[in-house]
Structure formats: structure tokens, C-alpha cells
């Protein structure tokens, strides 16, 4: 059969990963129709998806994740994957938190691809050495001290890009680092007004704004991977970014620990903000296409694919109990923390990447945070008010 | 014999409700076969509208049009067998002359060979054979006019309609084309209705002239009637250049009238004591020192063939035509003698002609 796959993996490491999946499907005798739509962090892809679904001609699979999966499922357009899931025993191989995201009313409707850890801090050892920073900062105090040194050395302390999810990636790491996992859950996942208006939130915003002052002025409009490249090239010291950044490092032939450093964002060593990429399957009539869909779902969850894909993408397999020996140190750390935090309650969904709240609320909060980040004229108090208000969006 | 074209009680209104404008008010005209009817009147009086109604391009609000005895109301233009020459010629800009002339035949499915023959024939008649390959934009005004004519002639229709076909031409060409139209009409004998602004055209071409004003037919008659026996002061002043002189008079007893106190020996058909308007054409007044009606020359306009002298009298300015060799100077006092036989009389109030 034929699978038409709508995705927005168009940057270097991502594109390679998508190509892997295609290879696997082709080897099973299916044709892969690539429908990549770049831009806007998936916004354009969502437009296409929506218009395709409305027209009654949806793609076989589309890259969607988080609560959006439930929203689509609620519209009754997603295919039931329980048969594949049972055959491949997904329940046993997925952590419950992740499995729940893939299900709607107890049925699997999407296949998870990988787990990204979002609360990473990346650094350039070359810059740190030049500036005389001895080790990766563990707290924000250490972080700012290091940043000051880098600044003094005439380099850019923090590489940053210019989309609202990048702002928010930094923001959620700050909230997690300042307030801890419980506070993070209350404020950003449950959107509890008390938490959103608390002193902790105020402190988070102050920290967040302080980080801004260590970025360069050309950040707005920059793509995340270009910011990563700044770290890679020794132009900038740190970057707050999920582990897809590692995909870029790896794709450029860099070696972790030597050419770049990874650590949990300051104050978040015991927490893990996850971002699970997944493919939802749409209801199709054609039997051949349905077969291809099932094969695609199975392929996605197969250990072989999980390994190859995640090696390229920089993330870790979502499947439990995979051998990690081919993976690098950062991934190993990530994998270990994933399992640990799942037990301790430090495993929290990433808001920036659509894992926590509905797209509407997420967008509104992102707007408010971005506005605060980009416009220094907004006071911390106002910023807090705006965020709290945005959180009430349904 | 049945009339070729019979216009019966035709009315035409444009617009609706409050904004209705009655452009034609009960027009009745009957045109005999082979006749050349001229339609004249000021701009906006409804001439083109009437032509359009005859052609079927416009429907009358009321009334009937009979062509060769058949009522054609509701018959589409293409089936009325009428050819029309438009003021702007309306040549098809993208076709060459031959195609312009042949278009109507082609639409009527005349076979190609026959069409060619007719085109050649018409072109030869109009002396435009050497132009057959040209586009209208490559022709001079006179040539375009001929092509427009040729387009109509190729058809050999029942009826020709001409809507001011010569008004875009310069004087010289106009004279030539006028003669040509006359010749063609005499040769073909096809009934024609011809709208014009030009009085010389009206006088020289028409077998009869219809003078219209504000949608009302003022007079329908031979050129001689219209010129010499105008039905009212409107027709009197509209036809003729320079215009007919109109003078207020009061009828005295015994075949005399008074012009602002001056007594003239002129028999007037109005009752004694009544006011009447005397109409005199410039060529029917002579300069005559001995005449009682005096005035002072204000303008002398020699046109070469004639000289027009404007004389200021107590009854207003009067234009007199004199021979070019007559020498008068502005300021000179002259007397005006009237040719009584050619005088026209109108009711002072209504402007209607008084029967002799």
C-alpha cells in the first residue's frame, strides 16, 4: 500500500531520521509519499492537515503529539491502532505516562517515536575554557556567574533563537529550575492561578529576564539550529534547548564531552521535561492503505527503528528496556533520568512542545511569555499578570 | 402600393417610475418604397432612438413598425433585413476591409465564392478595391466612411438606415460623399432613412424631410416645403444658414403691416390688429436705399460666393445676402426691401404658420 506521511521534520538531523523511516517502509514493499511542510514549528503542517481532514482526504499519518492527539481523536478522524498495539505488545514496552498520551478513551490512536528531554543546557567547552568557567553550572547562581565570565571574554553567553517555542523552552526550564517539579505541574500543567501568581513565579520571571540580557540582539528570527551552530562554532557559551540540538551536533560530527557539553538545565537535575514525537493515523477507506498504516505503526515501534532514528535525532527510544550501548553519554544520562524521574514524579510534560495543555492555552501562554521576553518594557508584575490571564484561555 | 416602412404611433420611454423620460412622443411616419427620408433635429431629440427602434436594436414602448407591410415588433435585428451605417462607422477594428464588408454575408451563410464576388463588386463601386487588405485603423476618415457604406451595400437590404454618416468628415469630403450617397441611392433605389445635422445634406439628399424636436415630429415634407413653407418658427430657424430672420409685426388694414412703427406693404393672412411674426430668408431681402425699412450695417461677412450683411434695425438684427461685388461698409445706413412672395407668416403666440 501507500503511506502519505505529513511531517515537519525538515532540518538536518530530523530529515535524516525521516529518511530512515521511509527506508524501512520501502523495504516492506510500501510506497512512501513524503509530505513535508516546513516552517512555523509545524504551523503550516497543521494548516495542511486541517484542510486535508476537512476535505475528507486525510494523509495516512501525520506528526501530531500531546493533547492535540486527543483533540483530533475526539473529532473522530483517527484510526484505531489497538490491533497493532496488542500484536506488538505496546502496553508493556511503553511507560504509562507516554502510553496515555497515545490513547484516546483507552484505544491507541498514535504511535510514539521517541522521547526528547527538553530541560537540557548545552555548552561549548572551548568557550568555557576561554572564559575560565571550570564546570557546567548546577544552579542559576552558578550559571549567571559563568555567563558574566563569558561576557567578559567578549563572547555571547547564551545562544538563542527567535520563535516563541524557543523562548518557552528556556522559560519552562527556568520555572522547573526555580520552582521544582511540583510547582511546574501546578503552574504550567494544571494552570493553577495561585501558582501562576506566586512569588516563585515572580522569581522565575526575573531569572528568565536576566537570561535575556545574556543573549545577542540578533536572536529574534533565528532558527534554533543556527543558535546551536553558534555554540558549535565557539561563538556562544550556552544554549537552553531540547536534545534535538544534539542531533545537530552529531550531524556535524561533534563528539559529546569533547566538542560540546550537556547537562540538565540549572536546578533541574532531578526532573525531566519530556517531549514525545508521535504519528497519529487517520481513518482511511482503502484496505491497502490501512495495511500500510499498520505496518508503519509497527515499524515506528520496532526496536530497530527506535534505535536508528534516535541515534540520528538525538533523542532516546520511547521503548523501555532498549540497549543503549550505541548511544552517547548524553543519551545514556537522559535514558537513566527518564526511568528515574518516572518513578519520583519528576517526569513532567513539556509545555513548549505541546505535551501539556491544549493548543489554545499553550499558544496564549507562549504569546504572553514571548512578549515578555522580547519586550523589556513589560514589568515582571505585568508579565505575570499576562501569563496568568493567558492561562485561562480555553 | 404598400409603404416600405410605416412608423405608427411609436412612443419610447427610458427609465422607470419617477425618472421616466419620454424620448419619442407618438411618432407617425410613412415611407414609400424607394424614398429617401431625412430625419433632422437638434441633438438629443430622439433621432438615433427612432433609428434604433426601426432596426430592432431597441423596443418601442408603444406603437408598431411595419416593414414592407409586416409588423416587425419582436423580430430580432438580424431578421429585419435592414442595413445601417453608423455615425462612428463602427467598423470591426480587427478585420480587414474585405472581411468587414463580407461579415454580414458570412453570418448569413452566403457561400464563399459568392461573397467574394459581392465584395469585389461593392469595392469597385466605391473605388476601394485597393484597400481591401487594410485594417480600418490604416484608413483615412473618408475611406472608412466608404467601407461603412460598402458594408451596408453588400447586403442589398430592404431598408437602409444612416445615422449621421458624414458628420465626422471634413467639409470637402462631405461634399464628395454626399454626391456618392445620392448616386448610390439613385442606382439601387433602396428605401433609406437618413439622420443628419447638416442642413445642406438634408436639403440636397432627401425626397422628404422630417424635422423633430423633443421627440415630437414638427414637420414632414419635401425639402422645398420645409425651406419655403416651414410649419412653425422652430422649423423656420432650424433650417437654413444663415438662419431665417424673424420680425415682429402688427397687421394693419389693407394688406400692410407695421414693424416697430414702420409701415410696410405686405399682405399678411392674420386678422387686422393681430400680432404676427414675419419670416424672411436672407436671400429674400435686398439692399435698397429707397425702401422705408432702414437700418445700419453692423457686420459684413464676405464668404467668397456671397456676402452676408448684418443690418441693425429697430426690429432687431437682420441678415441680408448680397452679391460679393456689392460693397458696403459697417456703419453705413441702408434700406431693406422685402420680396413679399417669399415671406412666411407665423402666429406671434404659438409660432405656427399662418395659412395664406
Amino acid at each position, binding site marked *: 500500500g501507500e503511506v502519505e506521511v505529513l511531517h515537519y521534520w525538515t532540518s538536518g538531523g530530523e530529515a535524516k531520521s525521516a529518511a530512515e523511516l521511509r527506508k524501512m517502509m520501502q523495504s516492506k514493499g510500501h510506497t512512501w509519499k513524503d509530505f513535508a511542510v516546513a516552517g512555523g514549528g509545524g504551523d503550516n503542517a497543521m494548516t495542511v492537515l486541517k484542510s486535508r481532514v476537512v476535505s475528507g482526504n486525510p494523509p495516512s499519518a501525520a506528526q501530531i503529539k500531546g493533547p492535540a492527539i486527543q*483533540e483530533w481523536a475526539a473529532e473522530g478522524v483517527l484510526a484505531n491502532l489497538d490491533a497493532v498495539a496488542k500484536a506488538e505488545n505496546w502496553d508493556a514496552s511503553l511507560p504509562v505516562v507516554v502510553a496515555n498520551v497515545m490513547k484516546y478513551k483507552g484505544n491507541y490512536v498514535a504511535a510514539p517515536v521517541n522521547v526528547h528531554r527538553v530541560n537540557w543546557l548545552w555548552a561549548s567547552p572551548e568557550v568555557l575554557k576561554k572564559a575560565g568557567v571550570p564546570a557546567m553550572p548546577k544552579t542559576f547562581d552558578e550559571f549567571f556567574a559563568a555567563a558574566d565570565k563569558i561576557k567578559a571574554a567578549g563572547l555571547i553567553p547564551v545562544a538563542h533563537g527567535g*520563535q516563541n517555542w524557543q523562548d518557552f523552552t528556556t522559560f519552562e526550564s527556568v520555572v522547573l529550575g526555580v520552582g521544582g517539579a511540583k510547582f511546574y505541574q501546578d503552574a504550567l500543567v494544571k494552570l493553577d492561578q495561585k501558582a501562576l501568581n506566586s512569588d516563585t513565579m515572580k522569581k522565575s520571571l526575573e531569572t528568565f529576564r536576566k537570561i535575556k540580557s545574556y543573549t545577542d540582539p540578533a536572536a529574534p528570527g533565528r532558527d534554533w539550529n543556527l543558535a546551536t551552530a553558534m555554540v558549535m562554532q565557539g561563538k556562544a557559551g550556552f544554549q537552553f534547548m531540547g536534545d534535538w540540538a544534539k542531533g545537530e551536533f552529531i550531524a556535524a560530527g561533534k563528539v559529546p564531552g569533547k566538542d560540546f557539553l550537556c547537562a540538565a538545565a540549572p536546578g533541574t537535575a532531578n526532573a525531566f521535561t519530556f517531549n514525545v514525537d508521535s504519528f497519529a493515523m487517520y481513518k482511511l477507506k482503502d484496505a491497502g492503505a490501512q495495511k500500510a498504516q499498520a505496518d508503519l505503526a509497527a515499524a515506528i515501534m520496532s526496536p530497530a527503528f527506535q534505535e536508528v532514528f534516535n541515534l540520528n535525532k538525538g533523542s532516546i527510544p520511547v521503548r523501555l528496556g532498549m540497549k543503549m550501548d550505541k548511544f552517547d553519554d548524553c543519551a545514556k544520562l537522559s535514558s537513566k533520568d527518564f526511568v528515574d524521574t518516572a518513578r519520583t514524579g519528576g517526569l513532567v510534560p513539556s509545555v513548549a512542545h505541546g505535551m501539556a495543555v491544549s493548543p489554545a492555552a499553550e499558544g496564549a501562554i507562549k504569546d504572553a511569555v514571548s512578549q515578555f521576553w*522580547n519586550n523589556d518594557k513589560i514589568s515582571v508584575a505585568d508579565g505575570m499578570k499576562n501569563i496568568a490571564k493567558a492561562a485561562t484561555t480555553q | 402600393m404598400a409603404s416600405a416602412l410605416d412608423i405608427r404611433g411609436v412612443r419610447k420611454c427610458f427609465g422607470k417610475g419617477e425618472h421616466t423620460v419620454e424620448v419619442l412622443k407618438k411618432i407617425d411616419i410613412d415611407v414609400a418604397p424607394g424614398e429617401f427620408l431625412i430625419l433632422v433635429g437638434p441633438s438629443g431629440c430622439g433621432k438615433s432612438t427612432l433609428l434604433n427602434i426601426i432596426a430592432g436594436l431597441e423596443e418601442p414602448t408603444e406603437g408598431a413598425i411595419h416593414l414592407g407591410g409586416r409588423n416587425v415588433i419582436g423580430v430580432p435585428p438580424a431578421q429585419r433585413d435592414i442595413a445601417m451605417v453608423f455615425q462612428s462607422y463602427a467598423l470591426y477594428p480587427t478585420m480587414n476591409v474585405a472581411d468587414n464588408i463580407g461579415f454580414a454575408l458570412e453570418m448569413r451563410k452566403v457561400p464563399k465564392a459568392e461573397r467574394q464576388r459581392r465584395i469585389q463588386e461593392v469595392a469597385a463601386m466605391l473605388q476601394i478595391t485597393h484597400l481591401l487588405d487594410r485594417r480600418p485603423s490604416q484608413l483615412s476618415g473618408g475611406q472608412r466612411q466608404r467601407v461603412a457604406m460598402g458594408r451596408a451595400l453588400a447586403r442589398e437590404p430592404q431598408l437602409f438606415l444612416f445615422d449621421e454618416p458624414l458628420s465626422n468628415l471634413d467639409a470637402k469630403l462631405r461634399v464628395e460623399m454626399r454626391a456618392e450617397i445620392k448616386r448610390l441611392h439613385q442606382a439601387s433605389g433602396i428605401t433609406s432613412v437618413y439622420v443628419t445635422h447638416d442642413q445642406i445634406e438634408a436639403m440636397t439628399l432627401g425626397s422628404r424631410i422630417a424635422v423633430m424636436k423633443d421627440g415630437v415630429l414638427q414637420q414632414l415634407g419635401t425639402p422645398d416645403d420645409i425651406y419655403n413653407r416651414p410649419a412653425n418658427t422652430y422649423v423656420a430657424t432650424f433650417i437654413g444658414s444663415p438662419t431665417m430672420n424673424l420680425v415682429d409685426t402688427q397687421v394693419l388694414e389693407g394688406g400692410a403691416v407695421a414693424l416697430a412703427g414702420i409701415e410696410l406693404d405686405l399682405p399678411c393672412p392674420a386678422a387686422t390688429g393681430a400680432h404676427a411674426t414675419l419670416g424672411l430668408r436672407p436671400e429674400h431681402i435686398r439692399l435698397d436705399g429707397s425702401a422705408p425699412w432702414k437700418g445700419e450695417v453692423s457686420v459684413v461677412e464676405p464668404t467668397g460666393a456671397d456676402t452676408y450683411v448684418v443690418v441693425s434695425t429697430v426690429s432687431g438684427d437682420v441678415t441680408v445676402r448680397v452679391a460679393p461685388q456689392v460693397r458696403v461698409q459697417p456703419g453705413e445706413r441702408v434700406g431693406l426691401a422685402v420680396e413679399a412672395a417669399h415671406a412666411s407668416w407665423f402666429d406671434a403666440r404659438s409660432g405656427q404658420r399662418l395659412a395664406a
Partner: protein
Amino acid sequence: MKSLDNLLPKLVLAPAFVLGLAFIYGFMVWNGVLSVTASRMLPNYEFVGLEQYVRLFDMDRWWVALRNMALFGVLYVGLSMALGVLLAILLDQKVRAEGFIRTIYLYPMALSFVVTGTAWKWILNPSDGLQKLMQDLGWTSFTFDWLVQSDMAIYCVVIAGVWQSAGFAMALFLAGLRGIDDSIIKAAQIDGASLPRIYWRIVLPALRPVFFSTLMVLAHLSIKSFDLVMALTAGGPGYATDVPATFMYAMSFSRGQIGLGAASATIMLATVAAIVVPYLYSELRSKPHDR
């Protein structure tokens, strides 16, 4: 026979009538309906009254979008027309190589904003573009970083917009100038007017209808401007350069707030109508052509 004659034009127009009206007005009505529903990811028909409008006007981002539309609209239309009229007048001076220069002015119109956005984004980018160029050339104090400043970025959108549309405005004005009776200018020369005066007093006033149509075209382009903003700033930094078109797009397609998006589209349509309907009305009223 006659009835067919009368029917044919209507038949020919029928597809345009049915499709045009169905698509334009059907979709408008559909949009209006959605704006009073609770539609989210996909359209649904749960009636919620004017709630979406209330929410819309309660959003700071919407107000920013409206403000940007006003600012952008005025500057973009004003500058494009000013530049267009200036270039048209200069080009009308029997310039050698007119056709060549005209083509240069006109070609930006041929480019899509996906194309020009790519170029302008780079030129306006402080670390790669103009600013870097100037600094590399030795003017180290040169800064031009509007693109990344929340309150200046909208002016970058204006610059790129004017760059694309000024040539089109020029073409319209040039067409207008060519339509002006030559003898009027000669008359003014004889009357003793200098060239600038002739343009100011005689020619420009005579171009009024062209100003008007150009204004209409540019105004609606500015309200509809979407590609431009998307390609250049995608509404950023933050949502500083958001305009109603991008707002509507974001809400309906990436945020799963179709109801809210529809409400914003209704407001956009109302704005367009407020500008265009009086114009159309006067256009169609003023010329009672009749055959």
C-alpha cells in the same frame, strides 16, 4: 428566438453567478456562523453567542494586530503611492531607456513573498545583513536592527512591502499620466507655469481617479497582507508584527480556535467592507452605462 437571445447572456454569466456568489458569500456566511460557535480543532456547531468576539477583544495580541494593521496600512499605502507617483512623474520626462528602468521598478511585483521574504530577512538581519555590511566596511557604529526590535519590526515589514508595491503604483500612475491630454500641459506652459507647478496644480489633481483606484488596491492588499508578514517575521518578535490576517491564521490553524479565528475574520471582512463598499457603490452608481 427572442427569448434565447435574452437568455444567453444570463446563461453565460450563470457559472460565475453561482460559483462566485456561493464561494464569496456562502463562505462568508459560513465564517459568520462559525464565529458564534464553539468550534475548536475542527468546525462544530455549538452555539455560544458572541462569546468569541468578547474573547477576541479581550486579547492583547488582537489589539496589537489591529494597531499594526493601522500603522502598516497607513505607511505602506502612503509610501507606496508617494514613491510610485514620484517615479512615475520622473519616468514620464521622456527619459532614455524608460522601458528598461520601468521593468526594474516593476519586477518586485513578480516575486512572491516567500522569495522576497528570504532576501529581505537576510538583508535586514543585523548579524548577517546590512548592519554587518556597514560595520565590515568600517562604519562600526552603524546599527540597523529594526527587525529584531519589538516596536520597530513592523517598519521592516513596511519597507519590504513598499519595495514590492511601489513599482505597481508607479505603473498605475504612469498609465494615468499617459492618459492626460498633452495639450493641457502645453496650455499650462503657455500660461507661464513652471514644470513643478504644472505637475502640482494641473497634472496631479487630474490624476485623482487614479489615486483613488491605487489607494483602493493598496489598501486591500494591506489588509490582506499575509505572505509578507509570514515570510519576513512570522509575526515576531513575540507577536509584535502580528496583523489580523496572521492572527486569524494562527488561531484557526495552529491553535485549534476556529471559532475565535472566524470572529477575527468577520472583523476583517467588516473593515474591508467599510472601506470598499462606499467605493464600489459610487463606482457603479456614477456610470449608468446603457446600451
